[in-house]
């Protein structure tokens, strides 16, 4: 029984970390799939949202839900401004310029965070209802982790439902599959992209806030976890919501287990596995093969 409880505990810990990874990365996957834009600054949006959420709770005494909503709106708003003014000029540019541009944005966000908030790490004060432990029948576990897993599942389910059933979801799928054909059918790809970009960045902002409790939140956040976001996206497959969901959960569990049993260099295996997987399937687990 002890073994089962132990195993379940590790699994839940990994799943909750993976959930945060999913919430941050899902927008990156869809926007990269849509436009083929290498947006390394996605982590910076997550950091921005995280700061808005944490600071609005700590300094302005917002409730948790209100802060999350504010984080989503603020991040979505700033991303739309950047997309309309700067990103769109680079859609047809080479990967090189896109990488350079988004690295530049990362630096600006990092410096901005240091200037406005300060270099120290911010801590998220969870509301009383989410602190402590919850009884799952066979084991006691942290309420917040369970909360994250449930929220993540709902978000993943909701987004994939919207992808499959709504008009805009169908338009996104069509554009990811074949952009030129979608454009000729009269889909306004430009507008579609702005909407998905804003939504994806907003989700990243929420993810930054939700994950601040155990990932921490400091100005280096935008760079520190970038590789993880990119692994989740490329392993899951560009433009595939469920792919990113599974990839994030797998990555989260692997990371949790390896950090527990192999504290020194456990991440080595994650990189090695990612390399092997991408060599086996360059398009990711659930991505469509390039034609």
């Amino acid at each position: 029984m002890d073994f089962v409880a132990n195993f379940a505990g590790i699994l839940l810990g990994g799943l909750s970390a993976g959930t945060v990874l999913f919430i941050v990365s899902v927008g990156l996957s869809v926007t990269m799939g849509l436009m083929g834009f290498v947006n390394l600054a996605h982590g910076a949006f997550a950091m921005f949202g995280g700061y808005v959420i944490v600071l609005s709770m700590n300094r302005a005494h917002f409730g948790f839900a209100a802060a999350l909503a504010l984080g989503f709106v603020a991040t979505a708003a700033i991303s739309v401004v950047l997309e309309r003014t700067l990103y769109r000029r680079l859609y047809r540019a080479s990967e090189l310029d896109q990488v350079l541009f988004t690295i530049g944005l990362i630096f600006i966000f990092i410096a901005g965070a240091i200037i406005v908030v300060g270099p120290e790490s911010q801590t998220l004060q969870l509301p009383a209802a989410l602190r402590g432990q919850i009884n799952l029948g066979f084991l006691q576990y942290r309420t917040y982790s369970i909360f994250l897993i449930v929220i993540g599942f709902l978000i993943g389910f909701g987004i994939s439902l919207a992808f499959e059933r709504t008009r805009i979801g169908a338009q996104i799928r069509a554009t990811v599959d074949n952009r030129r054909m979608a454009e000729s059918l009269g889909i306004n790809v430009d507008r579609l992209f702005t909407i998905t970009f804003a939504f994806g960045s907003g989700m990243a902002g929420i993810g930054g806030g939700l994950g601040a409790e155990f990932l921490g939140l400091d100005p280096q956040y935008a760079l520190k976890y970038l590789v993880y976001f990119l692994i989740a996206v490329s392993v899951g497959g560009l433009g595939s919501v469920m792919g990113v969901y599974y990839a994030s959960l797998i990555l989260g569990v692997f990371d949790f287990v390896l950090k527990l049993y192999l504290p020194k260099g456990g991440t080595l295996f994650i990189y090695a596995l990612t390399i092997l997987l991408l060599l086996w399937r360059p398009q990711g687990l659930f991505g469509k093969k390039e034609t």
Partner: protein
Amino acid sequence: MSAAASPAIEHPGARGLITRHRLRWWETLPWIIGLGFYFAFPDYLGFGAELLAMILFALSLDLALGYAGIVTLGHAAFFGAGAYTVGMLAFYEIWTEPITSLLLAALVAAIIGFLSGLVLLRTRGLTLLMLTLCTMALLQEAANMARAYTGGFDGLPDLAIAPVFGVFEFNPLYANTQYLYSLGVLLVCFIFMRTLVYSPFGQSLTGIRENLLRMHAIGSPVRRRLVICYTISAALAGIAGGLWAQTNAYVNLSALDLDRAATVFIVLILGGYGRLYGAFVGAVAYMALEHFLAKIYPTAWQLGLGLLLVMIALFARNGILGVAEALWQRYGARRKTP
């Protein structure tokens, strides 16, 4: 003057193509400035040696990224491989002769470059970017794990490097030997690289960058060329890393991290990629700005750097040299042809 005798020469575009590999007078300028720096700023020679290693590193990236169009974010993997080769050989006093150490560093980096290139270069775009990034992270984790041999996070300090040619000793306080030695290594590597990019092999790399399909169609062994190019580029990066370890007399995990890979990427694109001298201009501009601004106010430096990168990506796609060339063609060329 007869058109029939040599019609190719008569074509206005042909002259440029035929003579482009010839040495221009201004190509001696970097080396004159490099020597002048030695006499003019004796207190900054340590900084100068670091700058020269950065130029070499950016040159190596230029071969892969600028000429062959291999978009990699993990070039620090080879820099680090070279640095750790030199560092471990010197720290355990197995081999301390500097020039042969550099050759060994190049060899180790080339082997890693060849093996990883063999599998990575099947992919393109984001996948390639991710794979190069993961390879670098993998090496960094491996170096961190092998703490017993590499010193882990703290690295290997106080490397004892034998005198150059058995005569000129590395002095930790006055870096004049380090500086001239770095300048010499850079010159040799640069001549090699210049010869390479103007050779038929170098031309085929440009062809692969510009039009992959057409190179396949004319029967060019694209994959083999890319792997060879990646291997040579890795070897040059290994030399740069070895040089960095020797002149600093230490090596640590920073040789392998994302920060270093991003920096060399920025340096190259800042100067202008695919044009040999971009590495020089970019490294000087970047290091000078960093050295002086970061001391005054580090946050402002990061903000300024970010704004600069965004500006370059938006308005000056070919870096400083690209802008200079465009200005030259606009105002300089007009004077010549009335």
